[in-house]
């Protein structure tokens, strides 16, 4: 039998030289293709040295389910046509909420293989055509239809069960979860592309104002936590998770331009290099060794760190997959920023805030920026791209000259996890 050399290195280095994001939110008059065009236009308008779209040689687009959300299959060539980049090859990648994380990985490998120099990767999801019931039904189809769905074990139920396991094993409590939402909304309030550009405090004030307007009982809140503990304002979805523990339903698209590192300076003087990529697969939750951790996230991060030649102490900031608040806490432990069980205390101590030593989800995360599922993985990469280039604006991390950023994109309940390490050229 041949000896397999599992070296897992890129054949040649790859850089990100451009990034574009559509507005995230609910847009009744836009299809996924329109959203992708918006993201692409945003990218082109912000290319540092201009760019001829005819230079794109190949494209990958992440999308979970245009079929069910929009009754539209085979969406990749439609996107190519709308962008005016036919006849280059374009392929849709589906890996649930990690679809564009996986699309990016395909793009990186296409360049690393030597086949192409310039590749467009992105993601898109148009979710709000359907009523909420319809959306949750489509999302539920990512769970196992034979054994999980009949038990009502869909995403909020499963992440609720993960939260309960974390609370049982460690000193995690409900306020820790809510503090993740408070932080991510504080960051989202500083992100002009975010679906929710409001702090929790603003939302509490609005609720008070609404009650006054309508002559109803006016609630009194002493703090953001106080507001989030009001069951009328923040009802239970799947105990121990409330409404504000869940990412919203979002329309949006994202794209980045990948090039071979040796030509990156033709496009920008500030390329961000893909230092490491990792992707791993996990078993269904009931069969996982641990409930308080996603094994795929640990494996994918080890791959990515190893390829990048870094340890966790080199990481300046991260965008992680906070589809639920507990998922962010688990992610910060799986990625090694904090020891198992220490994630909640880190939130308490503000270590994951913009001015903390491990800023997490400076974009507002899926929670506040929004979660157009197929677009989220590349959306995370875009936030890190801007932060490492010092373009974070009001939400720029406080630490000086961040060099290394990590993205963590989960599909399903950990069936797929994609982790990338991005590094600013020194």
């Amino acid at each position, binding site marked *: 039998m041949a000896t397999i050399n599992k070296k897992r290195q890129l054949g040649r280095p790859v850089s990100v030289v451009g990034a574009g994001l559509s507005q995230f939110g609910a847009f009744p008059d836009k299809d996924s293709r329109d959203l992708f065009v918006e993201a692409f236009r945003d990218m082109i308008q912000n290319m540092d040295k201009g760019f001829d779209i005819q230079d794109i040689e190949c494209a990958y687009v992440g999308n979970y389910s245009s079929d069910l959300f929009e009754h539209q299959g085979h969406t990749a060539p439609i996107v190519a046509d709308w962008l005016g980049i036919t006849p280059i090859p374009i392929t849709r990648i589906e890996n649930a909420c990690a679809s564009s994380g996986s699309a990016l990985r395909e793009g990186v490998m296409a360049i690393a293989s030597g086949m192409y120099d310039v590749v467009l990767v992105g993601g898109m999801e148009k979710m709000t055509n359907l009523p909420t019931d319809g959306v949750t*039904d489509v999302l539920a189809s990512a769970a196992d239809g*034979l*054994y999980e769905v009949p038990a*009502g074990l869909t995403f909020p139920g*499963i992440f609720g*069960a993960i939260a309960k396991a974390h609370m*049982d094993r460690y000193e995690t409590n409900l306020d820790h979860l809510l503090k993740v939402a408070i932080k991510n909304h504080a960051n989202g309030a500083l992100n002009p592309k975010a679906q929710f550009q409001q702090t929790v405090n603003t939302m509490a004030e609005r609720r008070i104002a609404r009650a006054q307007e309508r002559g109803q009982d006016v609630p009194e809140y002493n703090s953001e936590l106080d507001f989030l503990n009001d069951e009328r304002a923040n*009802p239970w979805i799947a*105990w121990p998770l409330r409404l504000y523990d869940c990412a919203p339903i979002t329309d949006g698209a994202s794209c980045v331009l990948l090039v071979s590192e040796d030509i990156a300076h033709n496009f920008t003087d500030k390329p961000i290099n893909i230092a490491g990529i990792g992707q791993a697969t996990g078993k269904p939750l*009931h069969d996982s060794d641990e409930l308080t951790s996603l094994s795929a996230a640990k494996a994918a991060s080890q791959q990515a760190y190893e390829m990048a030649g870094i340890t966790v102490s080199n990481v300046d900031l991260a965008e992680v997959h906070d589809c639920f608040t507990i998922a962010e806490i688990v992610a910060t432990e799986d990625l090694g920023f904090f020891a198992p069980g220490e994630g909640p205390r880190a939130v308490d101590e503000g270590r994951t805030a913009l001015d903390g030593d491990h800023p997490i989800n400076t974009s507002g995360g899926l929670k506040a920026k929004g979660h157009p599922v197929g677009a989220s993985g590349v959306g995370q990469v875009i936030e890190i791209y801007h932060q490492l280039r010092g373009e974070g604006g009001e939400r720029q991390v406080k630490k000086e000259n961040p060099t290394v950023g990590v993205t963590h994109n989960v599909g399903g309940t950990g069936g797929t996890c994609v982790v990338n390490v991005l590094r600013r050229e020194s």
Partner: protein
Amino acid sequence: MSQQQQASPPIPAPVPQPESDFYWEKCKEEELWLRHCKACDSSYFYPRDICPGCFSRDTDWIQSSGKGIIHTFSIVHRGPTPSFRDKAPYVPVIIELEEGPRMPSNLVIDDPQPEKIKIGMAVEVVFEVLDDKISLPKFKLSS
């Protein structure tokens, strides 16, 4: 609690595949059976012909005692899909069976409250008739 709402559509019944026919037939008879691998002497869930541990095809079936413990749970207050709307609040659980395997299911309990349920509590299987082909294995607290 949601009597005013329109009746929800039925829960989408699982469509058994040939390799799980036996499992669902036994559920219909109110028995819980598990796949067992003779090559590595382990039991596993979901039911399938080939062992996920060692990829052996030398597998048979064993009857589970139907007893186990709660491995974790949540309490769903907002049914995620229309079919679950009037079932809420209900309790998704992961059960660890005496024989080793864990399985996703529901805990059947009146007025579910977090204080009433603890990880590690003993449970036993019960069956809920869904239609003339499918009975779903669920669990109740052991008395």
